[in-house]
């Protein structure tokens, strides 16, 4: 089992080789990267099957941080949850590595791309396999960094650099919450190791502390998994190369929040308010993002909003206590959403970078493999029986209903309808009808090369069968037998589930299937049967249309509040700093100088002036007296005579 350390280590070796020698390797960088991720996937399979055999591992490799009573190891945990995650990450990751070889083949940053991609694999696997929250946080920030680097991969494009920064900063807000959650966990339980924390979980501490911890953790999840209100970075993240969107912003990284909530289920189970919050945020996000997806015209953005929406479903599942269903949807979603992105990439690739679906159409003939697999993925995403998405989504909705979350359940149904509609709007606009692009771009729409097409086929295969094989019958399939026991020890949250009959279950499934088919049918009406209808409708409901097209103006709102206003505050503070705070310093120096000048003047004029004045008086007196000293005898005799005369006169007058 300790073999598991190779799973993250192999991509890391790939990073070191490509990172240090990428400049020399250049065009052969994929040899390193693809084999690293392939081998890692292979090892993951071995570990996975051992885990299926019932073995688990909780292994501290070395002590990372030890300060007083705070001790955190670098260590790995293999249990059903992390084994499933590890498998999804390495398998989808490997396929996307293969695909990237074709997609990125003539990019000048070829080696750099694969370095980042491997670094991502490493970080994601650390996140998933960590046996404590702090190491998970390392992976958590690591995938965030890779996301930043890969979104801004074409950094010369202003919009790409902006999007990368936005993703990082928005995620940092979530991470701040996560970090505070970690502090609270540690100060409550005295450890950050899952095993120790969950063992110390005690309902006697009161729900308050659990609610606080879980809400803080959920703030982190909202950032990473793009939920309201922190979802804004994900659509912009589409600036990155398409394989990146598939791997990071659909299949793996964005699901980390769901994984974290599921991982922390012993804490969430004691915090009913937090669970309800998770369910509500998930459900509302699912519908909110789906409505935006209805009217977007960029092929990748439609899929991106769809991702946000589907992540909402996963949180809805976790929030109603059906963690296993949430993770199941995570797994199936990884296949079909990665496939959608790779398919979109294949289309963009063949149209030389065109992403506007208004300029596509009729690609069915030119790109059969892409079209077929895209169709399958669309069906899976729409939740059509018996494809993968049907099983997992239905399970979530069913559990939501069963546990009495009626309004979130209804929202989920509305979302399902919208999903089916926007998926097939996209499909019909891109692949059916006639080509609407300009002649140059679409001169030869061609099928993608084999190394891009094969991953599509493999993912298509799993999008079809993953649900049926692993998820049938619902809640009791192969997958559930492996994973569900993990979550069972926990009590079901308050208002425990009502028991329902099998026929009711089938009825529910039929309902959601019917709703999805309705969505597809409507899309068929709109975009095949009566193509004039959408614009007519948009004209009729201008306000709604503009609201959706502009994504509820949330970006503009955030821009105004946080960026424009924030910058103004900063500039104001800078003014305060240089005028007031530094002004005080310079002011005191000015004052000192003035006082010194005053002293100098005082010294010169008053103190020294007095001295000089005395000297002047003496000198002046002496000068005037000197005049008397004429040296002429006659003058002296005259003076004496006058003096004697004077005395005689005084004598005569005063003493008569």
């Amino acid at each position, binding site marked *: 089992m300790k073999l598991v350390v190779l799973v993250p280590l192999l991509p890391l070796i790939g990073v070191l080789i490509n990172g240090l020698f990428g400049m020399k390797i250049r065009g052969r960088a994929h040899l390193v990267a693809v084999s690293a991720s392939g081998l890692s996937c292979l090892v993951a399979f071995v570990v996975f099957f051992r885990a299926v055999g019932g073995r688990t591992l909780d292994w501290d490799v070395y002590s*990372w*941080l030890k*300060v007083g009573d705070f001790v955190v190891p670098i260590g790995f945990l293999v249990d059903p949850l992390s084994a499933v995650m590890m498998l999804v990450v390495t398998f989808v990751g490997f396929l996307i590595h293969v695909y990237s070889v074709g997609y990125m083949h003539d990019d000048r940053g070829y080696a750099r791309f694969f370095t980042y991609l491997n670094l991502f694999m490493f970080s994601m696997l650390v996140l998933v396999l960590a046996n404590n929250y702090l190491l998970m946080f390392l992976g958590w920030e690591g995938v965030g960094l890779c996301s930043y680097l890969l979104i801004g991969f074409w950094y010369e494009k202003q919009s790409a650099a902006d999007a990368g920064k936005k993703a990082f900063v928005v995620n940092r807000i979530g991470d701040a919450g996560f970090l*505070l959650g970690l502090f609270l966990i*540690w100060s409550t339980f005295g450890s950050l190791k899952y095993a120790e924390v969950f063992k110390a979980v005690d309902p006697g501490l009161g729900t308050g502390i659990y609610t606080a911890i879980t809400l803080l953790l959920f703030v982190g999840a909202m950032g990473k998994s793009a939920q309201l209100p922190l979802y804004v970075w994900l659509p912009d993240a589409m600036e990155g190369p398409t394989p990146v969107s598939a791997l990071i912003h659909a299949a793996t990284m964005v699901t980390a929040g769901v994984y974290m909530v599921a991982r922390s289920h012993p804490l969430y189970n004691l915090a009913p308010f937090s669970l309800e919050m998770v369910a509500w945020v998930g459900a509302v996000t699912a519908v909110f993002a789906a409505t935006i997806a209805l009217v977007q015209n960029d092929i990748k953005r439609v899929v991106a909003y769809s991702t946000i929406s589907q992540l909402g479903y996963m949180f809805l599942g976790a929030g109603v206590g059906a963690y296993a269903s949430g993770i199941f949807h995570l797994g199936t979603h990884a296949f079909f959403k990665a496939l959608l992105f790779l398919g979109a990439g294949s289309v963009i690739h063949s149209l030389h970078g065109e992403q506007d679906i208004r300029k596509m159409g009729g690609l069915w003939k030119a790109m059969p493999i892409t079209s077929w697999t895209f169709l399958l993925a669309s069906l899976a995403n729409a939740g059509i029986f018996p494809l993968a998405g049907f099983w997992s989504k239905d399970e979530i909705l069913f559990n939501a209903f069963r546990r009495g979350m009626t309004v979130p359940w209804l929202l989920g149904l509305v979302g399902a309808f919208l999903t089916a509609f926007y998926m097939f709007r996209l499909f019909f606009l891109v692949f059916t009808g006639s080509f609407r692009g300009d002649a140059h771009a679409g001169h030869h729409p061609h099928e993608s090369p084999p190394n891009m097409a094969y991953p599509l086929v493999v993912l298509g295969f799993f999008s079809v069968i993953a649900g049926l094989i692993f998820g049938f019958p619902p809640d009791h399939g192969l997958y559930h037998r492996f994973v569900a026991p993990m979550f069972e020890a926990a009590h079901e949250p308050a208002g425990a589930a009502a028991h329902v009959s099998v026929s009711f279950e089938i009825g529910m499934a039929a309902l959601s299937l019917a709703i999805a088919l309705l969505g597809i049918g409507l899309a068929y009406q709109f975009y095949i049967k009566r193509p004039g209808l959408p614009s007519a409708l948009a004209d009729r409901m201008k306000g709604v249309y503009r609201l959706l097209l502009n994504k509820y103006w949330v970006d503009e709102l955030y821009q105004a509040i946080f960026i424009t206003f924030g910058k103004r505050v900063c500039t104001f503070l800078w003014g305060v700093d240089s005028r007031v705070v530094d002004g005080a310093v310079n002011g005191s120096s000015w004052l000192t100088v003035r006082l010194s000048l005053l002293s100098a003047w005082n010294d010169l004029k008053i103190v020294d002036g007095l001295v000089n004045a005395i000297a002047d008086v003496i000198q002046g007196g002496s000068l005037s007296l000197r005049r008397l000293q004429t040296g002429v005898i006659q003058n002296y005799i005259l003076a004496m005579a006058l003096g004697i005369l004077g005395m005689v006169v005084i004598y005569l007058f005063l003493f008569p």
Partner: protein
Amino acid sequence: MNVLQFPVLSLIAYLPLLGVLLIFLIPKESKGGIRWTALAFTLAGFVASLWLPAHFDAATSDMQFVERFNWIPALGVTYFFGLDGVSIWLVMLTTFLSVIGVVCSWESITERLKEYYAFLLILETGMLGVFFSLDFFLFYIFWEVMLVPMYFLIGVWGSDRRLYSAIKFFLYTLFGSVIMLLGILAVYFYHGAQTEVYTFDVLRLMQVSYPSTPIFSLLGVPFSFQDLVWLSFFLSFAIKVPLFPFHTWLPDAHTDAPTAGSVILAGVLLKMGTYGFIRFNLPMFPESTKHFVPMIIILSIVSIIYGAMVCMVQPDMKRLIAYSSVSHMGFVMLGMFALNTQGVQGSILQMVNHGLSTGALFLIVGLIYDRRHTRLISELGGLSKQMPVYATLFAIIMLSSMGLPGLNGFIGEFLILLGAFKVNYAWAAFAVTGIILGAAYMLWLYQRTMFGALENPKNANLKDLSPREMSTLIPIVIMCFWIGLYPSPFLSRTEASVKNILTRVNKVQAVAAKPVLSRAEGPVLSPVEACAEPCRSGPIPTRPPVAALPVRESR
């Protein structure tokens, strides 16, 4: 312990001075000779200092490698050098950054080489002396000595308003240190009056508790003798850290200093302030430390957030990094005054981290300044394409400064926040916004300089880093990864000393439980009580009496 009975600390401290002598013997024309001599001596100092962590005994909080002999017996002045867990990494940081300071000046300094390198080396001696000194008299001398070379480095080899900045730096710091001198004298005379032993020996001065009975109150806040002395030290150190609102000399000094000056200023000189707090304020004046915790915490949090926000909108790269230092040093102060193991150990580690990553950031700005003679962000942009190696190293350093897990900054910040959280949730919650802002301003800086299209034709032919330039950054990058992934060697060596200091500080809580009694009855303790009380009451046996210290007698 000083196994060799060899004055290793003095050797390390004065080696650079030997270099200065030699440099003065080299003719002015031999520029290479001067550079290589400076490099040889700083490098030798660094290699010699490697001896310290290797032979450092992590289990004890005693002073190690002690050298002590009487210097001016009439005044109680001793020559007293020692090293413990608080200072060891700061010493290593000093010798490390001094080497880098020499290498990074290699080509950018072309005038008055002799004086330049002489000042750089004298500066190193001054800094090391500050960290080694355990005698206030000696400490004060080194503290002042250090100012002079820095003043000249900024004033002579600086840019733009260098004279203004140099004078501001000098006077502001001098102002603080003169007031500290009053505090030192107060402690000296109080100790003398109590014990009839007049001494500047820091360890002995710590054996007495200074009166903490309020003697007057101002605006409702009571002040004791101890508080006043504490404040006199506080002012000097807070200016040095710098803590809001005493920070405004820093952006000016940094902006106008030559690269090596900025690196050492950010890397080491700022640490003198935080070092002073932890070496003197905390263990010597525990009651006042507790008394002033709220004030320090508020100032730290203001520094963190305010520094980051002002940083955000700076047009000048150096000024931006200077303000980011204000923010980061706020974290260091916050952790220290959390007064628990995690906080203080994180704080010490973060001093080192800040020295490494902010020092490296100044190197990075310096490298661009050498090429383009501008520090304005708006002049740059799109350099990634032209200078990939530079861009990569910049990215790693930036991430380290932002506190990305796996790199050094995270460990420090995490421990500090953890320590703060332990005391008060709100402290950590406020401080955490500094981390968000930190990501924002760093990424924005990076984006504006490195990303985007290369539009300014002046940037079109910039050369990527030369091997010499890489050799200044790569060692720092390695250290960043080392501390980030395996911090144990660093943390384990600080642990014992930190625990000892905290025992001294937190012992006050026990006293504070029955406060009025001991203080109201007799504000003046007899010398015996004063000495014995702190030694016995702590739960963990504290420092042994002075006589038992491993002391090297005079030669």
